């Protein structure tokens, strides 16, 4: 029971991170029908930006308050990563709009290779470890020498995820931009006819996707305290799995899928074997696609002639 509770806490934490990345996949797929392969690497870039911002804030500016530092790091990471993704969309994907369907995917794969190697070249191939940002934990339950702990950083991750999801939901459901996005998702030509600036809306989609990935990246850095240039691929594929599991194109689906993948992964590692934890995630991906291709919340794919 204690183990279960502890794994539940860990799984939700991991799942929040996956969920935030998954939203980026699902939004981009929803609006331009493309699997944004480089999204995992955008997430990795954001973790590096967060690390550099953290070092800058703590050692150069000498800000001691961890709340202020974390807030600054989060905002800086969101800003820069959004910029990076905006430029990527502009250079690598926009010229290919309306081209044949493999072109953006190949371009995205190329971008993914480029980004991870760019970070490797500019920041070095070694793992980068930073001192822990947040220490301390609540002991929820203590019996038979096994304490169920909820650490402050897990609480912070839950809190930030919840706040951001609320803000994001407001953005999509209530604002002009969100309406434009939903319109483009349904029918780009029609949206353009009624005055929606399609190019700008797609750009903004990439910006928002990157901002959410940056939040995930910052929290990943805070949670694990270490990041390397190759950290984009596996979380990226897992987040994509989450998006597919939730039903690609569906925003609540991405969050639920992320939580499920996080839980599956932690429980698998706890109760079976940690060696095959990535196999578990990939198998979930394959099984979902084979038996439930529209996912939990997705619309079934209608075949049109």
């Amino acid at each position: 029971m204690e183990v279960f509770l502890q794994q539940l806490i860990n799984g939700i934490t991991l799942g929040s991170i996956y969920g935030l990345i998954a939203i980026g996949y699902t939004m981009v797929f929803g609006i331009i029908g493309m699997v944004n392969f480089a999204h995992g690497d955008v997430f990795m870039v954001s973790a590096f930006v967060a690390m550099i911002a953290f070092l800058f804030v703590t050692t150069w500016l000498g800000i001691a308050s961890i709340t202020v530092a974390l807030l600054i790091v989060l905002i800086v990471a969101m800003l820069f990563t959004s910029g990076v993704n905006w430029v990527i969309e502009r250079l690598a994907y926009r010229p290919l709009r309306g081209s044949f369907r493999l072109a953006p995917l190949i371009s995205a794969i190329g971008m993914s290779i480029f980004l991870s190697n760019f970070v490797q070249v500019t920041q070095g191939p070694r793992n980068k470890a930073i001192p822990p940002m947040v220490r301390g934990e609540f002991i929820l339950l203590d019996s038979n020498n096994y304490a169920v702990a909820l650490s402050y950083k897990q609480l912070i991750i839950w809190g930030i995820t919840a706040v951001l999801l609320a803000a994001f939901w407001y953005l999509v459901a209530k604002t002009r931009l969100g309406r434009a996005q939903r319109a483009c998702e349904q029918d780009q030509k029609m949206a353009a006819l009624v005055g929606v600036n399609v190019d700008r809306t797609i750009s903004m989609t990439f910006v928002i996707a990157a901002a959410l990935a940056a939040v995930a990246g910052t929290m990943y850095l805070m949670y694990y305290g270490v990041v390397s240039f190759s950290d984009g691929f596996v979380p990226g594929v897992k987040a994509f799995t989450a998006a597919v599991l939730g039903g690609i194109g569906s925003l609540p689906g991405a969050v639920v899928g992320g939580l499920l993948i996080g839980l599956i992964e932690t429980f698998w590692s706890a109760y079976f074997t940690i060696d095959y934890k990535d196999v578990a995630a990939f198998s979930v991906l394959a099984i979902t696609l084979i038996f439930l291709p529209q996912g939990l919340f997705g619309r079934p794919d209608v075949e049109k002639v």
Partner: protein
Amino acid sequence: MEKSAQSTGVDFVHAVKEACLAAAITFGVLLPLIGFETVSNIDNKLVLHTRWGLLFTIVAIVGVGRLLMALVIAPRLAQRRIRPVAATAPSWLLLIGRWFAPFAIGFAIVYPVLAMGLTGFSGALKWVDNFGIQILIYVMLGWGLNIVVGLAGLLDLGYVAFYAVGAYSYALLAKNFGFSFWILLPLAGILSSFWGILLGFPVLRLRGDYLAIVTLAFGEIIRMVLINYVDLTNGYAGIGGIPRPSFFGLPFTADDDGFAAVFGLPFTPVYRTLFLYYLILALAFLTAFVTVRLRRLPVGRAWEALREDEIACRSLGINTTNTKLTAFAIGAMFGGFAGSFFAARQGFISPESFTFLESATVLSIVVLGGMGSQVGVAIAAILFIGGTEIMRDLDFLKQIFGPSFDPTQYRMLLFGFGMVIIMVFRPRGLISTREPSIFLKERKAISSDLVKEGHG
């Protein structure tokens, strides 16, 4: 942009504005990752160093580049665009296309001789091994995947799985049971195509991107099993001491019954390299030949029809599942051949050789070459693999950028960049015309811009 396209005169103020904007954006985007460097100090703690010089150099290059683009290149492009674009490829290109293949085949056959003539007997080893064999492996993989992606239109991101199955089949069977290369080569192909059918069966109902992702997942699952099933595969450490192929029973060793001794030649390792070169060349030609012949058969025509329109295929009574499975199995078989050759050539394999990056490389060779075009695939393989291999020994760059400059670490960076650039400028690949396998009255090349892609 539109302004400069309409008026042929150059708008200088506008160009400067654009250049400043580009420079500012570059500065903003690169500030964290290039402006700062994280270095571990003596206490093994990360500290920040700044690299303003590098950052501002790059920003300046981008700014000036954008200015030149707006002032010089854009007006020229705008003028060129006024001419109508022909739907078919220009005739000189077709002429080159017709004579390119025989010329390339001839060149591939005399290449080792040429290399030896130019660089000497042992100097040629590097050229034949690093360039010849390495490129040919990718040409073969590209042609194998071309059957799946280019002909049948099924997007496969896990092709490396079959390559791995072939390599591990050869390595394990040769080491544990002592079978010879010539028995195991077909066996590895059969095992790979068996895996192709096994994996293909459940996933072929899926279409397009979904299929791509599931194949990616399978590729990764196979790699992780190779890593974690240590009893069989020896995990990360890999399998070493794999038996090398022999020349019809004669091993390439310095022994008395070795190849050199039997033919009365002095022993050098060059013979083995030459033998491997011609072996992979023959395997690659086999792949190309089989593909060309299959395209004439009903199954090949069904593949191409499937690529263009799946629904039309089904309404015409083509069994799409079987058609897709044959494409998957045959593509996998060639991957298996290439894999067992790879294991035999290296003598050592580990899961590191079968990462997603390999799948992506092969897929991009196929797509960048122009899907379905054999010549295009070969050109793309030479360009990418040869290009990245050449990056290994560009020592003169060290004299320009200083001794700490290591060109090898920029290989994959440029590789990824190249993929994006080629896609942006030639989204249909380098050879983007298609010659139909069957035609009415006369053979016409079709620009692939006119071809609709099915859902696959």
